[in-house]
């Protein structure tokens, strides 16, 4: 082939491919900002179940009215619709935007509308498996199951539906009087009263969902009211810490009662002997994380004057954590109680938790060894993260950066501040912007750009960010750096507040009042595990405290 023939070939190829791409995109694309159609889907819900649905193109006000007692009537207006490719179940799943798109299917003269509410109500795309995020997330987690369900409604089977059904995708906008979810909150609107209300609501959710023995409902599925089995003591400690922080800052009596009850449970029935020390757990092998987070909650309750009897347990737990520390600052994360020996294994987060807990404990115990141990653990975390490219990738460092902030006035570590600022720059790369068309996700941190960001992943990064911001202010870092980090954090906080259940999509909840104040795993995974409100609302609380401290400092300076 001559060079001229090759050039001609590539010109034709590029033009043809560009046209094909542009046409494909134009045919498939749904415009969320399009002028809405006249088509409205009116549905009535009770106990999280849709009990009636009607599609109209006229005034919907009288449709399915009056709604039955205890029922919620929802009106969704179709904004845009287009073809949905459905050659295979997986292509169908990949063609739907999780949490945003609905679809219709026509078979044998019957047409069925599956709205985003329907898909959320049956948790069709939480994007998790066994509590862990899936590596590949699509618009439907189980497309075959979804097809079977819809086929049954149409009196057919999944195979026939896929082969003969005419699928279309659509976008809707809510048009009923219910409070919107996601709520309409922007970064510019955040202030102390709003943040405080959100944090208190989350604390009240946890307090309401506490058992009489002091444990919490570990994971609630609000759509069906089921409680997931299992429990996790580090998360119990973290939840207690958050409740204690809310109680200390707001004086909220429910938060205080719940925090004290949760701490009492740990002191009375989960405190074990680990050699000469006390530790927290309920198995022959205990981990450092449970003790570290229990210690943090004890310190918070003790400092607030809510539990003066915790002074001795604080000293004992701090002593246990110190005993687990290696000479290089790292901690051995397990202790075998039967063999009476430390086990030198490492898990995510525990060293950061221990560093933060020892730093907080030092304020109570006054023991220099607690401060030394905390500083050494923080220095290890920062120094050990040193390899080619280490400034461009990070683990979740929320506890590390909180340890940095807490230690700053007694043992400042500038390298750790640089590390935490780099971590925030890294997170900014994954932060979605206002142009994101998947949903109201501006500020959310998502590692996969085609799937809604998780709230809990965003929350832990914001916790680290607020601690970093507070430290950067204390260290008099460059104003531009401070402004950049704060702007990033405010957007992330607004994202989390938009998705808090206040009241949330109550029509799809089995009991609309039970999840009130809770924070789900993601906009499409509506489960509330105890650490979700802990991290997200904990971040809201700490940012409100920072704003309040700043306002206090400004007022003091002006006097």
């Amino acid at each position: 082939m001559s060079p001229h023939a090759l050039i001609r070939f590539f010109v034709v190829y590029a033009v043809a491919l560009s046209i094909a791409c542009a046409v494909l995109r134009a045919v498939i694309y749904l415009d969320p900002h399009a002028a809405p159609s006249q088509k409205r889907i009116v549905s009535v819900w009770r106990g999280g179940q849709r009990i009636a649905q009607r599609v109209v193109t006229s005034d919907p006000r009288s449709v399915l009215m009056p709604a039955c007692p205890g029922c919620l009537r929802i009106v969704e207006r179709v904004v845009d619709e287009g073809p949905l490719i459905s050659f295979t179940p997986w292509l169908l799943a990949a063609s739907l935007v999780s949490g945003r798109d609905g679809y219709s299917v026509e078979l044998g003269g019957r047409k069925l509308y599956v709205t985003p509410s329907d898909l959320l109500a049956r948790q069709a795309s939480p994007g998790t498996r066994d509590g862990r995020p899936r590596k590949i997330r699509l618009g439907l987690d189980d497309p075959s199951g979804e097809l079977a369900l819809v086929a049954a409604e149409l009196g057919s089977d999944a195979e026939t539906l896929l082969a003969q059904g005419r699928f279309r995708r659509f976008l809707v906008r809510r048009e009923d009087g219910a409070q919107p979810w996601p709520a309409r909150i922007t970064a510019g609107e955040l202030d102390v009263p709003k943040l405080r209300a959100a944090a208190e609501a989350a604390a009240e959710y946890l307090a309401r969902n506490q058992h009489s023995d002091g444990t919490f409902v570990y994971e609630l599925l609000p759509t069906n009211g089921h409680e997931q089995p299992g429990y996790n003591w580090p998360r119990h400690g973290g939840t207690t810490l958050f409740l204690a922080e809310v109680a200390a800052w707001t004086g909220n009596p429910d938060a205080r009662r719940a925090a004290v009850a949760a701490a009492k449970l740990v002191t009375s029935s989960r405190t074990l002997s680990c050699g000469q020390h006390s530790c927290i757990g309920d198995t022959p092998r205990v981990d450092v994380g449970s003790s570290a987070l229990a210690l943090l909650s004890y310190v918070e309750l003790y400092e607030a004057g809510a539990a003066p009897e915790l002074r001795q347990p604080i000293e004992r737990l701090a002593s246990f954590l110190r005993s687990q520390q290696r000479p290089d600052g790292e901690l051995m994360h397990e202790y075998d109680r039967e063999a009476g020996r430390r086990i030198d294994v490492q898990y995510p987060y525990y060293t950061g938790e221990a560093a933060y807990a020892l730093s907080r404990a030092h304020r109570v115990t006054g023991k220099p060894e607690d401060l030394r141990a905390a500083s050494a653990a923080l220095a290890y975390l920062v120094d050990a993260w040193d390899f080619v490219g280490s400034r461009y990738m990070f683990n979740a460092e929320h506890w590390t950066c909180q340890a940095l902030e807490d230690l700053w006035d007694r043992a400042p570590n500038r390298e750790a501040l640089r590390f935490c600022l780099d971590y925030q720059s890294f997170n900014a790369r994954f932060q979605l912007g206002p142009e994101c068309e998947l949903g109201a996700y501006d500020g959310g941190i998502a590692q996969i750009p085609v799937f809604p960001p998780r709230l809990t992943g965003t929350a832990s990064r914001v916790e680290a960010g607020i601690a970093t911001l507070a430290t950067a202010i204390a260290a008099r870092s460059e104003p531009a750096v401070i402004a950049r980090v704060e702007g990033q954090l405010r957007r992330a906080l607004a994202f989390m507040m938009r998705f808090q259940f206040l009241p949330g999509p109550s029509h799809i909840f089995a009991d609309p009042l039970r999840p009130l104040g809770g924070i789900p795993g993601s906009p499409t995974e509506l489960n509330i595990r105890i650490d979700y409100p802990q991290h997200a609302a904990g971040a809201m609380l700490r940012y409100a405290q920072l704003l309040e401290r700043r306002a206090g400092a400004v007022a003091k300076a002006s006097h």
Partner: protein
Amino acid sequence: MLAGLVLWAAFSGLTARDLWVDLPAVLLAAMLLSSSAGLLRNAPWALRMLRACASIELLIGVVAIAALALSASYLVGTHGDLGRSGALTMTLVLALMLPYLVLYPVLQLIWVYARQHASAPR
């Protein structure tokens, strides 16, 4: 080297064995190796073999790029603007594909064309 890459991609990169993929991969690798050997020995069939190899590589390249571009357009159509990380992923995949499956075979075809014209009787 490209023959090795083709075999590595087919037999190490792909986790399942499929005759429709494995056989063409082995054939292409064999053609690449024999054209190299032929060129080293100045065999009369070497240039024709090289041209066939380069054409196949180029065909794979243009089909792969078209598939990638159409998939990306489809994804942008269904999900809207994918932002910086989406664009970065696309650029990375293209950057890995272009040198081996487009630039290299194009250079080979031009070289074969030049050699054939240089040796043709005037």
